[in-house]
């Protein structure tokens, strides 16, 4: 990683103006490639090794590629430890929480961006301030609330509390500010109701911001750990990360199965990222996160 960055400020790199000499360009590409390898290598290593047999995994020194690609670990992981339950729980929580987040965040953002009402600025500042309150800090009192609502050990307890993400409201509000008021006013004159305007005029214009919020909501919920660790005390409501951490720390299951589960848990988010990735940079650029 250091090789990618330490030498770089000196290199000619301002392609936004003119063309750097060949040597600088070469150095830059080599540096970027080296850095990218540091980032990707451990993950690729884990992915490749998940196809190794148990005896191959314990061999020293380890071989780069598995001798034969065996799906043994995957079969075993899927067949034991209720892996399917954890997977289904993770999928349900991620999808439901993301849909809920999108629904309530966009509505709140629309109110904050496009209406004048008493208390608006106060509510917006409150939203900004709570970005700073990490869940870890209020973990116990939130647990109290969830527990008094009887939501401990239920998927709803995993879905609802995290749904009102302040970051999502912030990103969407910043984006909605760029939508011209005249558009909304014109729809009103045409007799459209407030909710119809929101749904048919505003939402279709917010696709990049919606993509950003979707991506991050899926990443956050799929990978959530601390909150599910606290709420999901019963194995039947474990999500993948909770199951992984619990099983890994107990050292009761062989490492090859932990590896297979880890790799399986990576696949869905990577696919989603590849589908939505072109929205990420433009989305971040346009949503005022910068």
């Amino acid at each position, binding site marked *: 990683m250091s090789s990618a960055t330490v030498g770089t400020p000196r290199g000619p790199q301002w392609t936004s103006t003119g063309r750097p000499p060949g040597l600088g360009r070469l150095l830059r590409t080599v540096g970027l490639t080296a850095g990218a390898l540091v980032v990707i290598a451990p993950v690729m290593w884990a992915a490749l090794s998940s196809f190794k047999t148990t005896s191959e995994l314990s061999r020293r020194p380890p071989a780069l590629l598995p001798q034969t690609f065996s799906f043994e670990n995957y079969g075993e992981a899927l067949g034991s430890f209720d892996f399917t339950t954890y997977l289904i729980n993770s999928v349900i929580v991620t999808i439901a929480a993301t849909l809920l987040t999108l629904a309530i965040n966009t509505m709140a953002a629309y109110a904050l961006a496009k209406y004048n009402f008493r208390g608006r600025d106060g509510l917006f500042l409150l939203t900004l301030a709570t970005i700073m309150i990490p869940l870890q800090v209020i973990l116990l009192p939130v647990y109290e609330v969830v527990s008094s609502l009887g939501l401990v050990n239920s998927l709803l307890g995993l879905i609802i509390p995290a749904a009102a993400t302040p970051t999502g409201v912030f990103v969407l509000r910043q984006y909605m500010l760029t939508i011209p008021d005249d558009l909304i006013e014109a729809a009103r004159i045409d007799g459209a109701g407030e909710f119809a305007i929101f749904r048919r005029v505003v939402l279709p214009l917010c696709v990049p911001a919606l993509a950003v919020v979707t991506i991050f909501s899926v990443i956050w919920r799929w990978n959530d750990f601390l909150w599910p660790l606290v709420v999901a005390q019963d194995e039947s409501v474990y999500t993948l990360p909770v199951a992984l951490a619990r099983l890994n720390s107990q050292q009761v299951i062989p490492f090859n199965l932990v590896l297979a589960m880890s790799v399986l848990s*990576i696949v869905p988010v990577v696919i989603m990222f590849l589908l939505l990735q072109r929205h990420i940079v433009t989305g971040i650029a346009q949503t005022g996160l910068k």
Partner: protein
Amino acid sequence: MSGSVADGAPAGVRSGAGRSRHRRRGSPKSRGQRWAPYLFIAPNLAIFLLFVIWPALNGFNISLYDSTNGRTFTWAGLDNYRDVVTDEDFVAVVGHTLVFVVCFVVLVTATSIGLSVVLDAQRRGRAVFRAAYFLPVLLSPIVVGVIWNWALDRQVGLVNTLLDLVGLGRPGWLVESSLAMACTIFVGIWIHLGFYSIILLAGLQGIDPSLYEAARLDGATAWQRFRHLTLPLLRPTTLVVVILATINGFQSFDFIYTLTGGGPVGGTTLIVQFIYERAFESPIRYGLASAAGVMLFTVVFAVTALNYLVGRRSEAI
């Protein structure tokens, strides 16, 4: 964040103009229009109040009580705060947290700036590189911890296997305390680098290219252009990254849980793990954990506000 606050100003002006135009036409707001914002904001606000605002206030309240089971509470006043600051474990944990946060914030900010500048300059394969560096952002911190714990294993790890090949021996990465802390910082950077770089990349792409053209015509070297153009113009974005990194740094827990488990002998236990263990592992000290939580929030809030104010002021100068 500074950029966003600035963005807010014209918006207020704009909607204000909309309202006066409305008034000029003489049509008062319809009933639907008057109630709509409250209905729109209600669901989000309800969840927000119930699961964030109320608990935040309540957390302060709990920190003034003593409880070993989370059901019965006895008044303790400031005892929990006294107990926590005199707790030897807590003092050690605060030390580790400070070392971690300072190293993490400084290194990850510098690395992200470097990476974003290089990525911005790179034309060929930029999308591929961008995706590659973003990969760790997608991973569960738990999985990251599992993977790096294994990669750094003294005997069968990828890192030591490679080092051994070139004759550098087999350091006990996660066995020695200071090395384990260094590895924890490294993995923290590894996780967040991609996201911060993309934020900075968005900032870089907002810089007017003609400024570089002018500097080039004036004979500025690449380093001078970086030092006197890029860095100052990137400052608002850098501020966002520093603030995010500070918050994320103080919150670090998940990946450490599976990377080192907080070990060796507590050497990489940070404050969130301390809070978690006091609250949910026996002997349970609920109030004490809450007191530590309140202190963490106060510190994070203060540091963020400080970052913001210092960032704003240096911008003004």
